[in-house]
């Protein structure tokens, strides 16, 4: 199963799990990244990191290592 950091700009996915149980995981979930939610990668920063994602009505910037914690199911 791919993780969010493997998506290219324009691709969408549905979150299946967030790994870990530390502060990062808690923060990701507080910001609305939890299973069942749909995310879209909007763009990548110049050096390929971080990535900009859209979640419903808002956008977040995530570093690659953070996005790697988010397991997703690729949506067409």
């Amino acid at each position, binding site marked *: 199963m791919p993780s969010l950091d493997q998506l290219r700009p324009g691709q969408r996915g549905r979150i299946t799990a*967030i790994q870990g*149980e*530390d*502060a*990062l*995981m*808690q*923060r*990701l*979930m*507080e*910001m*609305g990244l*939890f299973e069942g939610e749909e995310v879209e990668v*909007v*763009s*990548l*920063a*110049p*050096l*390929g*990191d*971080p990535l*900009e994602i859209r979640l*419903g*009505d*808002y*956008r*977040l*910037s*995530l*570093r690659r290592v*953070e996005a790697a914690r988010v397991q997703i199911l690729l949506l067409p």
Partner: protein
Amino acid sequence: MQTRQVDPRDSAPPSANGTPSPARKLTAALVGNPNTGKTTLFNALSGLRQHVGNYPGVTVETKKGQMCCAGRTFDLIDLPGTYSLAPRSPDEMVAVDVILGQQKGEARPDVVVSIVDASNLERNLYLTTQALELGVPVVIALNMIDVAQSQGIRIDIERLSRQFGVPVVSIQANKKKGLEELRAAVAKAATSGPPPRQTPFPEAFEREVAELHRAIGVEVPVFLVRRLVLDVGGWTEQRLAGRLGEDIRVQVQGVRERLTQAGCPVPAIEAKARYGWIREVTAGCIERPAQRPVTWTDRIDRVLTHKVWGTLIFLALMFLVFQAIFTWARPLMNGISDGKEMLANLLRDHLPVGPLTNLLLDGVLEGVGAVVVFLPQILILFAFIAFLEDCGYMARAAFLMDKLMSRCGLSGKSFIPMLSSVACAVPGIMAARVIENRRDRLATILVAPLMSCSARLPVYILLIGAFLSGAGFPWWLPGVVMFSMYALGLVIAPLVALLLKRTLLRGETPVFVMEMPLYKMPSPRLVLRRMFDSGWAFLRRAGTLILASMVVVWALLYFPRGGSPEEQPYDVRIAQLQKEADDLKENGSKDAVEEKEQEINALTAEWKQQSYLGQMGKAIEPVVRPLGWDWKIGMAALASFPAREVVIGTLGIIYSEGQLDTDSITEAENVADTPLARRMKEAKWDADPTRPVYTIPTVLSLMVFFALCCQCASTLAVIKRETRSWRWPVFTFTYMTALAYVGALVVYQVGSLIGG
């Protein structure tokens, strides 16, 4: 999802005796996510009279003001913007402590105003659901309803209010709409009880929390017990473990294990429970278009976060910011200097000669001038920062630069402070406020003074112009040396940052999840306000320290002022000579005037050389000798503690060229032809009058020293002001001086080996 009513008795009433007495002052606290217009609302409610404060041990600022609601005065506290009340550091604990009434010297708020962005309601309500559990009446201020409407989002406000059991008021903070209704709701809520306790958590969770609460004692608020269970390794756990003993960690671990078995894994349970509850409660209240419309933010972001276009626009913008603080501020700064000179001349003509006049002119007036001269740069930089932040671009800038800055252990947010420091470290260090993470902010502040600022420029210009250009040197040498001096800072600063992040400021990598807010028109009022606030904060808190350091250095150069029964003190003699010179100017020969002026300069040099600072210079000569310096350079370096460029003025005095203005060097057509440069070329060692002082290794060593040292009282004062501790300015001064000394030593010794 279960929704269960909880006995309201488990949350304390807002005040000891329930309803507040009419005489008691009421307090309201403002909470909300970043980028929801919280500051705009705070300004609109509290007007111009605000007070920025800090609680001990934390670096976040809390603003306080007053507002009138239905005839009663409220203290209004603006708490730091946050997405969640799950504290992971003392900084994040402030909001929780204030609302729970556990912050020393702060009354427990009677009302919490939770401001939410209507265009992003669900995520914003997450924080609100936490606020509802604090046992204080809550009023929801639904902001940016216009933005939501433009996206086709409709919100049934009355229903939302019924569902949450708290008043919901629709406002537009930037247009000052709905504020009267909000004030009325706040006044009413203050006298009502806390909101009906509904919990989003499953019964198993609440039962475990209640049991743990009984076990550790009821004096700990239930909110903190919940946090203790939910925040693995969070600040609540650390604080309670310190207060109640380490056993608590074992107990909590047991609770968490039981919860995992019961199907409520911590911390995942919180987000799931809260978002689930929010969706359930708001189900009939929010109407969205089936197809999400393409917004302006979508369109703008396609360009501004684009790999190529986004980067180009960013670089152009940064060039503009840099150009503005580097050159636009120049005329204003010159104006301030000229004004100071005019005032000094005016006062000099009308005041008697003596220590007091000299203190006023060379100590206080110079000091005040040195403080005020920073204002143009600070105001211009903060106008840009406030503008970029308010329109939503700042997050994009951090996004674009994050990878680059992460190589030295920092984040994209450190870029603007570092860039600004190339013009001047003082506004650069103040700009580091945009960095939320404490360790990153400290690392940025501590390395910002290494960037080659504009105050180093006169020093480079003088030394390169006098000793490394002209006949006998390749045409490209001055440019290369100048570039190397700038490159030195650009290379050393990231290395030191990396070193600091690996040693002194070590810690787990902070979370960089950052919201990219919607673009919007910045509010001119907010921009002006932030400019004014930053300028005022600088004057008030750093200004006095800068002034004090100027006065100390003045005293060290003024005393002893000589004088004996046979002879007047130096300053009196100089004033007499000056008067004679002025008289000669009107009806004497040019040569006579020049002769007098030389006499004045020689006497000034003699006076300063025997001053305390001169004596200190002689005392430290053994220390600076390995750098290739004689005591005069050592003394000039000491005298430049208030600001690097002062070294030129001091060298001018020591070499009997009188008090020099740095402009006489930077604006000279040929630096090598200036009297000071000529004198320096002629300078010989006291012990060996055939040997020139300024050889190429000495000149390079001096430049490297000034590139790396922290001879800038203003920088140190601002570090003190921003970190609220003497530890960091002392640390910065020490490490930079050590670095500068070693750098200069290596350059001189290696240079002497090659050259000698």
